[in-house]
């Protein structure tokens, strides 16, 4: 199996100081994280709020700087790349954010938003830009009438589709999904998740899929890593973890979901 993303012993700590008199406090947002995502594979990252999931997502994309460790994409070490060099690699790895309505510049039309990645990375010729935008809209199940609208004029689900459209526009092979549906209505959640599954098949994508919702994780993932307080406490095949959790924390997590379901 080809490794698309490899994270080795990655840590991030924040030093916070509440006031002049209090002592420095070190917050370990991520501690010695090690995992791997293979081709056309989905690794689910689950954990309660504040456990460090978004921190890992941002670290993997070098949107924040790691304190320690190593990140490899397609076998290339990107941990210490300068911003200029890093920019070239950004087309290979994309991210879908947790919040849908503030991730797009409210003053850009859908058309501009979709053309932007195409232009930056010279994906298609100038003359084919319009055609490509139409194709992307189709792929994320949006009608071309939305093309001239602004993010504020679209629903959360539609915005999330545009964010997905931007992510696949660069022909990225790996997409980090940071709670892609948690801000959406239940009815829309399914549509977006199915779109992600469809795209995974069509484009041979790999996902690092972050969620605190076990149902969603079960629906999406091949493998699962469970996080608590910045550490991965358990990792393995999805079925194995869900049917036979080893760690106390995982057990509790699964129980709590079952509770909700029976209620």
């Amino acid at each position, binding site marked *: 199996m080809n490794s698309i993303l490899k994270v080795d012993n990655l840590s991030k700590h924040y030093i916070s100081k509440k006031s002049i008199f209090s002592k420095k406090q070190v917050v370990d947002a991520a501690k010695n994280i090690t995992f791997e995502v293979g081709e056309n594979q989905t690794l689910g990252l689950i954990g309660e709020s504040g456990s460090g999931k978004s921190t890992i997502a941002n670290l993997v994309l070098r949107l924040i700087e790691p304190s320690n460790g190593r990140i490899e994409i397609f076998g290339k070490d990107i941990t210490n790349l300068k911003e200029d060099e890093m920019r070239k690699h950004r087309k290979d790895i994309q991210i879908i954010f947790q919040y849908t309505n503030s991730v797009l510049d*409210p003053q850009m039309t859908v058309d501009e938003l979709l053309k932007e990645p195409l232009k930056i990375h010279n994906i298609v010729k100038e003359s084919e830009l319009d055609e490509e935008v139409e194709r992307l809209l189709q792929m994320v199940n949006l009608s071309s009438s939305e093309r001239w609208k602004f993010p504020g004029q679209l629903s959360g689900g539609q915005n999330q589709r545009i964010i997905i459209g931007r992510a696949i526009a660069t022909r990225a092979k790996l997409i980090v999904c940071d709670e892609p549906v948690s801000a959406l209505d239940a009815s829309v959640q399914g549509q977006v998740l199915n779109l992600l599954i469809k795209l995974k098949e069509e484009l041979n994508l790999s996902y690092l899929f972050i969620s605190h919702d076990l149902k969603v994780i079960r629906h999406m993932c091949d493998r699962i890593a469970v996080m608590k307080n910045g550490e991965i406490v358990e990792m393995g095949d999805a079925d194995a973890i869900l049917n036979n959790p080893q760690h106390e924390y995982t057990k509790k997590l699964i129980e709590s979901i079952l509770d909700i379901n029976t209620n």
Partner: protein
Amino acid sequence: MKKTNIPLILGGIILLLILFIMIFPDMFTDNSPYTIQIVRFIHEDSKLFVERSPFNPGSDFVLGSDDLGRDILSYIIYGTRLTITLGLLIAIGQFLIAIPLALLGGFGNRLAKSVIQQFNIIFSAIPALLISIILLKLDFIADLDKQSSIIAFVLILTAVSWPKLGSLIMERVEAIIAQPFIKGEVAIGKRRTKIALENVVPHLAPELIILFFMEIARNLSMIMQLGIFAVFVGNLGIVDDKGSGFYINTDISFEPEWASMLSTSRTLISTAPWAVIFPALAFFISVLGFNLFGEGLRNIIQKPDSRMPLVFRKLISLDFSYLWRMIGKKEKIKYSVGTVTLIGLFLIFSIVNKEEYTISLAADSIDLPNRVIIGTEEADETIQQITDKMVQLGIEPLEEEGYALSYDIGPSYMLKDQDFSISLEDGPMDLIPNQDFAFVTSGDINNTGMIHDATEIDMFSIDDYSKFKDKFILIDKDYYNDQSIDYFIKEINKNERVKGVLLIARKSERINSIIIDESEMMSVIMVSREVSDLLKTNMDSTISISSSVMPLESTGYNLVGIQKGTDENIGDEAIVIGMNYNYTEDGGNDVLEFNLELMEQLCQQQGNKRSIIFMFLDGTIDEKRHGVHYITQDFPYSPNKVEGYIDLSGLVERNFDYIQFSAAQAPITRPFAWSLGHHIEQEFTKNNLEIREIQTRHIGNEYYFTDSQADNAMFWEKGIPTIIINTLESGEETRSIEEVGSILLEVINKNNY
């Protein structure tokens, strides 16, 4: 439902009014802000009251006058331009510094960030107002002239006030960068500079525009506060007329500007409150205007669904076609109507503005001779025509002998013929008269001889002139003054065997002569530098000169008449206008015709409270026989009743390129003439007439006046403040004296109410 944006409308009206006042100040007041009137007379119950300034608001001065009797209303109106411009320039300076630093700092540049923070710390510890007062009160800055003091003022106020703005903008930049969509742009692989330009700046721009108006308001109130502490722009260098012409500086500003009004009048708050209240009100209204407008803009461009940032992004990327498509049809009509109305208003204003004062010459209305020289028949004929005109206009003579005041010019001759040739190896060479050479004194003379070069010797040291025997002596005028040269010529003249004196002309000196003194034996000839170089390289060649002359009548005539002032109190005071009527070439009659036309129009103007004395001076083409020397010797009017003399005898051609202007002989201590001169200069600048300074000689602080004796006569001999206007040409001749005439009509009329 749409709510009317009251702040925007109110602010817009105020700003529009300010704009119009700045462009067309003369539409809003008839008074000149420079006019100083320290006493005025009031008749009541057939009694005469004399009142000293400051004057109450009333019919003479709508908003009252200040301590010097200057009209508050017109001072405020004319001061709008400078005051608002200062506020604007400072705001521009602040933004030029603040925006780049704030952007850099917002994007995490440590240096930019700490510069902003450190400056803020400094200026929060010491108030900016205090620093500016200390800096601007430095002697060095207080002594600057108008232009430099404006620059210093703007620079210092910009320096003390930008940090606050810088940190404000930086905060905004940081807030924008913290928004998730910026992270989204980074993740997509966009360059930082592009993010700054395409995402950050557009979102920042509406705020910046609003801030710009707010900052102007803040600057204006800062300028006002400085004014209260007697800090303002525009100190003037002034020539003292009592002493020997020293430059002095005054604490009072004579440049219309609101802060200086507060400063000048702040001690009058209890006796003449209007002198303080109205300029302060002007400040308040404009501060209010800018603040309201900024607030009103905020209501439109900071609404959540506003597309302003998009507009700015498209502007930055120069994508105008997108903008054009974006604007709806209705709005297009609305905007076009707005623009057209505004342009229309401007056009109407500028047309109305131009109408009032114009002087234009008809093609050929009067039949004037095409050459008029002192002592000739043509001169007599012209004198007759001018006096006829004066009679016709009701202008009265000043002396019993009539308009024409005669003076003796001594034996004078007109050159009929002049020749000058040099025998070079390849034959004789004839020089061109009035270009290569010109006779200064001569007679019917024919002479040949060699040259003796005296340019290398000190003429003062010579006591034996015998080595010049039978020769022409070459002397460089550059090394001696006129008196010395006269002295040499006299000395040389005693030695009868000298053939002549060749004077090498000074650099800017015109080589031209029409009227000359008589000499039986020896000629004095002015030669150009080129000729002198030619002579020096051919020292062994002989030159031959010849001239023939015609004697002139030895009498010159100055024509003087007065149009009596209409006011019973100041009617005796007079403005004198000096003009020429001698000329030697075609085209000179155009100028004479212009002079007559100017006289006629001035006489016909309404409200000539002061008298106007018209002087047509004879002999103006000849420095020595210039009528002004004679009229000052026996001045036909009481000199201390003369408020000012406008010397137009230097208007010599109908079309010209530059104005040579000087009001240095109309010092502030003679307020009427000073105001007149200042006003004329302003109008020249407004009409894009290029002003060239008159050559003066300064030695240290002392102030010697112009090279021309005629220019200095009135001021230095009779103490009459003088404004000199000459025309100069450089070949293109794009401007016309009609423009000068229109300006004079306007200024004299406005100052003679």
